[in-house]
Structure formats: structure tokens, C-alpha cells
């Protein structure tokens, strides 16, 4: 229907702008909570240093927050500009979730962020603390709604196709809200945000400790970050495992691709730690496997199969054939045929309508597909294994490295010797990028692993795009590249400048660079 280039360019633009947006989101999620914790300590103890901590880390948060706001706007525009058919097809479900995010989260964040920065002298201590926590709650609520929306794209429940309006419509809001995939994703993702904030504060505080600057300030920040970080990283890992379990039930192809599991092996399946996936020959070279583990992760049992990619592809063939029947009857319904057997035939097969639409890539009519075409479409349901296999392992490696760092720093904080463990401080500085790498690879696994669908099993990606020309897409991609590059340079410059200045940027006269030699 559309040239592959339109679909490719649209995907590239969405992928890059979404990943770019997510450079700023996790830090906002984490920093607002850390600011809330620091300010709570300030209100409880009345110690000025905690107020200075809120103000200084708040400055860094502000530099990041502006970018989050800027790049978030893009995403809201982009469903309409670039994914118009998607917006028509699932707007009935996806739209309200986004609107709910606006009402409940965006307003909370953006109304109170101004008071957070400018309300210090106009609010009582407790009032200001409340503002800070509302800001934190707002950011996490925002994540809740967008992950319910994303969870629905991965595992669409509580909706069905309406042949009169030619789109999906909501049947149960409760099912959509309590979608197990969404709930697990939400906790996994916000906890990853908390880890990002913790790693950021921990790393920068370590740098001050290494340079023997602002010790009291840095030590207190360091210990808050290590404790909050440890709790968060444990949640991320536990919920990541839970994510594996829900995928085992709902997104079998993605899970099998992550594991490079071509064949269905007798239960319990073993976990491939390492290897080289070979898509063409459908095998994994030099695989190193741990027995039982995949079966345990995906099914929580020792006697259930984890289906391999080849068997899952065979299942797709059956669903495509059923989807062709659905599509055929839909055409008749649309032409005004009132025969009740057509309606019942359609209802019988409509769950597979999306699989029928996969054929649109090869034949506009759908119903005339031959066995070879069906096989091609079925093959499309198997994601590209190697990119998923590797990004997943990078994410997990980052997670466990951070678990190690937070466990060690927490332990040494508790025993009050963290300052002396210079190797650990250095490691904390160098590992600042890890949470970002983990978050970006994690989203890659989730979204790339859903291909060829935008809505899993319902709407193929190649159908979802707007009717645009390649020129228009190059215009927008060029614009994003230009603005995002310039903004990133400016943001990094400011961030580094303020990190170097440290708390002296508050001009209180109490910190490094401000004290006159006696």
C-alpha cells in the first residue's frame, strides 16, 4: 500500500524521538522522588544542608525537566502526524489514556513545578514539601497512564473491532487498566527511573567525595542515593523477572526471540546465556545454556513448554487463514449485506482480523493470498532475533552491575567507610551512563520485539502510518535532528557546568569555591 520507505522512515522517526525523550524521563521520575526524600529530611530535622541539597539537585533536575517537556510534546503530536491510521483505528482506547494522563499527571507536574522553584519564600515548610511530593506523584502518575497505553499495545485487552466504524472500540476500561502487562511494566519502568535518579546523585556525589569537596553535602546525598537506589534496583530486577513471566503468557514470540529459542524443547526449557543467533538458518551458534532457567522464568513451572519460534510461526499461519475469512466477511458487511450468517462468520473469526491485515503488505485484496504469500506474512510475525537477543542482555548486564554498586555503597555507608573506598567511588562515577543504557535497550526490546505490529495481533505497523510523502518525512526528520542535537549540546553544557560548580551555584557562601582562605 505504502512504499516501505514511508513505513521505515516513520518508524525511524518515532523510534529516535521516543528514545530521545526517554533520556530525560527516567531522570525526572527519579529526581523528583529523591528531592521529596531530601526535603522530608529537611522538614523533619530542620538542618539547612538538606534544604541546600534540595535546591542544588533541584537545579540539575530543572535543566533536565525542560528537555523532558520539550521532547514530550513531540510524542503527543506524532501519533496524529505520522500514525494517522493508528490514531483512527485505536483512538477510542489509546486516546482516553493519553487524555487521562493530561488531566491527572501533566497538570499536576507542570502546575507545581513553578511553585517548586519559585515558592520557597511564599510557602510554609510543610506546604513546600507538599508541592515537591505532588510533583513527584505527578511524574509517576504520568508514567502510569502512558504505560497502561503501551501495555495495551503489547497485550490488547478490553476492546473489540466494530465493523460499522471500522476501528477498535473499548469494551472494558477495567480490563485495560488492570492489564497485567501494563501493571508490571509500570512498576518496572518507574523503578528504573528511580534507579536513574539514584545513580545520577550517587555518581556526582562520589565525584565530590573523590575531589574532597563539600564533604558533608556530598556524603548525605550519597547515602540517600545509595539506599533509595538499592531498593529501586531490586524492584526493577524483580519486576523485570515478572515481566518475563507475563511475556511468557502474552507475547510468546517476543520472549522466544529474546531467548533465541528456535525450537520447542521438552520442558523445562533451558536459558541461553550467550550465543550468536543466526536468523537465516534459524539456529543459535555457540550457545551456552543453563538448564531449567527459561522454563522457570516464563512458566514458573518445570513441566510446561516454552514454545520455539518455528512452532509459533506455524500458529501464525493458522491465524492468518482465519483472518482472511474475517476480512472477506467484513467486506460483505461493509457492502451492506445483512445476511446474519455473514455477521456470525465474521464474529467467529474477527479476533484474527489483524492477522489477515498482515497480508495487505503483499496483496491489497487479502482474500486472494496463496500459500506462499501466507508463509511470507507468517514469517513476518517472527521478530529479528539478534538485535533483541543482544539488547536484552546489555540491559540485564547493566541492571546487575548497578545492583552490585548500590549494594556495596549501601553497605559501606552503613559501616561509615564509604569515603575511603575510592575504587567504588570511581566506579560509581564511571557507571553514571548505565541506567540510561539499560532504559534505552529495555524500550528497544519492548517495541522492536512487538514488530510487525503496532497493536499486537490487531494492527500491523505497515498499516498504521499516515498517508505522507517521503519528502515530508525527510523534512521532519531533518528538523528533529537539528533541534535535538543543538538542544542536547546546550543541555549537556549546562548540566556539566552546574555539576562542576556544585552547591556553590546556590550562592549561599557556605560551599567550596566560596570560602575565603583565612
Amino acid at each position: 500500500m505504502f512504499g516501505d520507505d514511508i513505513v521505515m522512515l516513520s518508524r525511524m522517526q518515532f523510534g529516535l524521538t521516543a528514545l530521545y525523550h526517554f533520556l530525560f524521563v527516567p531522570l525526572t521520575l527519579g529526581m523528583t522522588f529523591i528531592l521529596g526524600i531530601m526535603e522530608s529530611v529537611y522538614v523533619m530535622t530542620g538542618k539547612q544542608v538538606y534544604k541546600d541539597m534540595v535546591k542544588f539537585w533541584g537545579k540539575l533536575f530543572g535543566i533536565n525537566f525542560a528537555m523532558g517537556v520539550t521532547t514530550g510534546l513531540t510524542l503527543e503530536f506524532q501519533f496524529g502526524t505520522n500514525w494517522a491510521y493508528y490514531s483512527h483505528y485505536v483512538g477510542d482506547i489509546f486516546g482516553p489514556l493519553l487524555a487521562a494522563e493530561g488531566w491527572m499527571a501533566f497538570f499536576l507536574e507542570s502546575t507545581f513545578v513553578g511553585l517548586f522553584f519559585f515558592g520557597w519564600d511564599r510557602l510554609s515548610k510543610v506546604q513546600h514539601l507538599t508541592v515537591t511530593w505532588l510533583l513527584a506523584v505527578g511524574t509517576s502518575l504520568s508514567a502510569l497512564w502512558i504505560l497502561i497505553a503501551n501495555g495495551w499495545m503489547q497485550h490488547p485487552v478490553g476492546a473489540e473491532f466494530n465493523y460499522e466504524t471500522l476501528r477498535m472500540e473499548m469494551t472494558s476500561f477495567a480490563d485495560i487498566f488492570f492489564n497485567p502487562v501494563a501493571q508490571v511494566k509500570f512498576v518496572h519502568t518507574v523503578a528504573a527511573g528511580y534507579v536513574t535518579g539514584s545513580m545520577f546523585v550517587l555518581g556526582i556525589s562520589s565525584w565530590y567525595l573523590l575531589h574532597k569537596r563539600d564533604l558533608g553535602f556530598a556524603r548525605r546525598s550519597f547515602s540517600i542515593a545509595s539506599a533509595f537506589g538499592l531498593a529501586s534496583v531490586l524492584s526493577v530486577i524483580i519486576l523485570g523477572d515478572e515481566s518475563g513471566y507475563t511475556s511468557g503468557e502474552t507475547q510468546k514470540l517476543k520472549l522466544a526471540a529474546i531467548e533465541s529459542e528456535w525450537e520447542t524443547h521438552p520442558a523445562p526449557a533451558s536459558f541461553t546465556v550467550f550465543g550468536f543467533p543466526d536468523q537465516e538458518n534459524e539456529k543459535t551458534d555457540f550457545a551456552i545454556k543453563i538448564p531449567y532457567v527459561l522454563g522457570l522464568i516464563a512458566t514458573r513451572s518445570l513441566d510446561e513448554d516454552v514454545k520455539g519460534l518455528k512452532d509459533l510461526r506455524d500458529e501464525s499461519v493458522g491465524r492468518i487463514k482465519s483472518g482472511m475469512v474475517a476480512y472477506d466477511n467484513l467486506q460483505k458487511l461493509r457492502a451492506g449485506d445483512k445476511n446474519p450468517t455473514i455477521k456470525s462468520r465474521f464474529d467467529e473469526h474477527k479476533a484474527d482480523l489483524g492477522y489477515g491485515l498482515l497480508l495487505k503488505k503483499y496483496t491489497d485484496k487479502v482474500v486472494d493470498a496463496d500459500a506462499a504469500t501466507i508463509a511470507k506474512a507468517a514469517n513476518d510475525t517472527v521478530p529479528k532475533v539478534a538485535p533483541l537477543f543482544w539488547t536484552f542482555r546489555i540491559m540485564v548486564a547493566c541492571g546487575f552491575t548497578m545492583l552490585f554498586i548500590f549494594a556495596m555503597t549501601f553497605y559501606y555507608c552503613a559501616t561509615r567507610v564509604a569515603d575511603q573506598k575510592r575504587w567504588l567511588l570511581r566506579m560509581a562515577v564511571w557507571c553514571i551512563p548505565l541506567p540510561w543504557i539499560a532504559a534505552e535497550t529495555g524500550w528497544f526490546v519492548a517495541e522492536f520485539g512487538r514488530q510487525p505490529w503496532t497493536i499486537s495481533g490487531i494492527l500491523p505497523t505497515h498499516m498504521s502510518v499516515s498517508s505522507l510523502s517521503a519528502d515530508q518525512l525527510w523534512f521532519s526528520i531533518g528538523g528533529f535532528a537539528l533541534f535535538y542535537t543543538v538542544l542536547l549540546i546546550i543541555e549537556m553544557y549546562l548540566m556539566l557546568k552546574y555539576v562542576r560548580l556544585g552547591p556553590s551555584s546556590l550562592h549561599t557562601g557556605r560551599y567550596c569555591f566560596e570560602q575565603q582562605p583565612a
Partner: protein
Amino acid sequence: MFDYETIRLIWWVFIGVVGIAFALTEGFDFGVGTLLPFIGKNDVERRVIMNTVGATWEGNQTWLILLGGAIFAIWPAVYATLFSGLYVAMLLVLFSLFFRPAAFDYRSKIEDPRWRNSWDWSLFIGSSLPPILLGVLVGNLILGLPFHFDQDLRSFYEGSFWALLSPFALLCGVTGLLLTTFHGALFLKWRSEGAIHARAVTVVTALGPMLLFALAVTTLWVFVGIDRPEITQMAATDAPSNPLHKTVIAKGATWFQHFMAYPWMWLAPIAAFVGIGLAWLLGKGESRMGAFIASSLGVVGVALSVGFALFPFLLISSTDPGSSLTLWDGTSSHSTLLLGFWITIIFLPIVLLYTRFVYRIMWGSVTEATVLKDSHTLY
């Protein structure tokens, strides 16, 4: 609770409310940003101007985000058609909005005059381009857009970005900019003292007549120069949303006759002219809050005039009138509209309540003394 027809009408009102809230609040933010480099003659003055909206611009901008989200949720076909059809224009709006958060947050973080000057002009672009582009957009809503749906309800757009810039649409763009600048000048006049206050009065005095003239020409042009399509046959107002189930003729009753058919609709243009006229008269004198309230009435009047004029259309197709979207056949399902209704009924008052709290806390003029005292925390 509500039947499908009623809830569709309620949502037309709700989206109008969100649109008006956006025009009112972001409207004066845009105006203040547009005037920044002209009214502020030195760094301290510019900081004073920025800080009159400093703590609240972000909340105000959320009305735009909510407007987008609500249209997506309630009128998905409108969202899909408008945003993809006007691809380049929408991206230009987006790109110009990029300038705003960074300009506010980054400007005063470095003392270099060139740095600060660049951000001042960035804020100017980010505050003046969107009202122009949104004005052009409104003009094209009246003129109709060249789109149609195929059998799968996929929308196709036949125009280009340049085709949007017709003389009438450009006039609407200019009117949009005049409106936000006038509204912003009155806000600035209210919340500042001394030299800035005096310059804001000068701007109000000069812009008032220009804005009234532009509005009068626009209105006249709509009444005598533009065709209005008319629905001759359509499915019931509570039928499933499918825009292809109706017949529309390109040239029906005129826009004037449309207003005559619903005489109460005249209240909107009357509010627009009276509000802005009054704001001008009061704004030239001593009045601060009174003049701003009058111009707010004017902004509401302008927004309502556009909504009423289009009723029951949401998007008019100029090339295939039958594909036009109306508030009866362009909505989401009944259950989604009801769900959205409850979310709105609960959260709209809460949002208004805490927005009011924030405005109350930040009440009062910003002066040079305030800016100099909090030099390291303010914008």
C-alpha cells in the same frame, strides 16, 4: 446515564472549554513572550517580564497538551486527519514550541549577554509563531481542507503547506498574533510597574484599534466571501461514527444565514468586539485587572465565534464535502465518551482549584527589586 447524542454534544462543549482555557492562559503567555525583546530594554527589565509568567507558563501550556489529548480521545478521526494532513504546519508549531521551555529555564543560568539575548529572541519566536500558525489553521478550518476518506476510513490529504497560506488564512494568522499580543500586553500592564508598565500601556493603545479592524475585516470576509457547506442528509445523531454515511453539498446557506438560524450564536461575536473594545478603552487608562478581564472576554468571544460558526462541523472537506467530520459522526464510541466525561467531571475542578492556588501564591507585581534580590533562583 447520557444517551449517545447528548454526550456527543457535551463533549463538543468540553473541548470548547479546554480550547478556551488554552487561548486565555497560553494566549497571554504568548503575548508576553512576543513583547519581551521590545518592551524589555535591558537584562533586568527582561527578567522582570519573564518572571511575570515564570511560575505559571508551564501549567498554562498544559491546556494545549490536554487539547491535543482530548481531541485524540474524543474525535480520533479529527486528530488523525488534521495532524497528518497539515503535517508541515503542525511540525512548525511543534518546532516553535521547542524554543519555550529551554528559553525560560536556561536563559538566566549563564550571565553572558549574547547567551541571554539569543534566548530572548528564541522565546520571541516560540511565542509569536504558534499564534500566527494557529490563526492560519483556524482560517483553513473555515475555508475547508482538501481531504477525503477511502473505504477503510483512511484519510488522504491533497493539499500542501503553501496552499494553506491563502490571503484569508494569512489575515487570520495576523489576527491571531494581534490578539495574543494585545492580551499579553494587558497582562503585563497589570503585573508590572514603572517603565515596563508604561510601555505596555503604549502597546495596548496602539494595538487595540488594529485588532478591532482585523477582526471586523475577518468577520466581513467570512460573511460575504466564503461558501459554507451544508448537510442535506445524514445518519441519526446517535448512529455509530462513520463520516461516510451522509451527503453534504459544497455551497449551502451562507455563514451569515447560519448565525441567523441560531440567533443566540450572535452573543459570541458581540462578546469579542465588546470585550476587546472595552479592554482598549480601560487599558489606555488606569485599570489593571478590569482591562485584562475585558480582553479575556474578548478572547472567549473570538474562540466561541469560531466554534459556533463551524457547528455542527469539526473539519470541513473542501474537495469531498461528504468526508467532512461533524460532532455527530466524528466521535469515539459511546462508552469512551462516558468514561471521558467522568474523568473530566472529577479532574477539571481539581485542576482549576490547584491552579487557582498557585496563582494566588504567586500573586502580585514583579519588580526590578524582586528580580535583583532572588537573582540566582528566578528566571
